[in-house]
């Protein structure tokens, strides 16, 4: 397909409208699967993947580059990192309360209703869900960015112009 043809392609209005209707449901349902994972099939992994899928759906309807600019690559990576931090924090909280790593029974010292269940849900939602959702969305956007895509140009780096020294990509990816 030539470049001229490519530029004439417009995003389909039908798909855009449907995605506009469907996406809130997917997001809500992904959160439901994540939050309700303790009492029904599902959990952080499945729910996080579903939430990550929302980004994919938006990208297919409204264009990948536009969605990536809107969402921001840093937000996606930050979500995944935050997941690991939250998981470790829940685990270390047990240590801080005088028990062992990831021992939720330690939270019985706090004035909570169901301490063990809350600990499990915190790990599922804040930990695994964020990690999986962030990684899926991040991998998708970077795989989709073809060789000719502008690399967001967020830090003013021109593609192929001094950015391949190694310091550039690592530096502005944090």
């Amino acid at each position, binding site marked *: *397909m030539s470049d001229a043809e490519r530029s004439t392609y417009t995003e389909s209005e039908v798909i855009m409208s449907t995605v506009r209707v469907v996406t809130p449901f997917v997001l809500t349902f992904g959160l439901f699967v994540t939050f309700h994972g303790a009492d029904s099939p599902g959990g952080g992994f499945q729910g996080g993947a579903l939430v990550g899928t929302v980004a994919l759906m938006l990208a*297919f309807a409204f264009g990948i580059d536009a969605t990536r600019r809107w969402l921001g690559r840093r937000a996606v990576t930050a979500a995944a990192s935050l997941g690991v931090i939250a998981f470790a924090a829940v685990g270390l909280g047990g240590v801080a309360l005088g028990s062992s790593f990831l021992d939720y029974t330690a939270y019985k010292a706090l004035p909570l209703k169901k301490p063990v269940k809350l600990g499990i849900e915190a790990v599922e939602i804040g930990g695994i869900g964020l990690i999986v959702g962030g990684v899926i969305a991040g991998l998708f956007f970077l795989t989709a960015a*073809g060789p000719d895509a502008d690399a967001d140009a967020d830090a003013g780096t021109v593609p192929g112009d001094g950015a391949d020294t190694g310091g550039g990509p690592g530096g502005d990816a944090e």
Partner: protein
Amino acid sequence: MIVEQALLAAAAALVVLAAAVLYRAVRGPTMQDRVVAVNVLGTNTVVILALLSAALDVPSFLDIALVYALLNFLMAVAISKFTVDRGGVM
């Protein structure tokens, strides 16, 4: 009892129909034909899951059916958008 048998029979019939539709997915000839076939397969899967949920009385199967309904759409849009040309539009 009759209802359960009917639900399971319908599920079995739908699985057989899905296997038949698989012929179109294997045969092609164009990629869009395969996508149509997989889309029909996905809808069938959703319905089969709902039938099993009612027949076996496991309401949580409906969650999986909902996930499928959502992802089936994503899959069809993704593949069809992709096949406009390899790397052309995406």
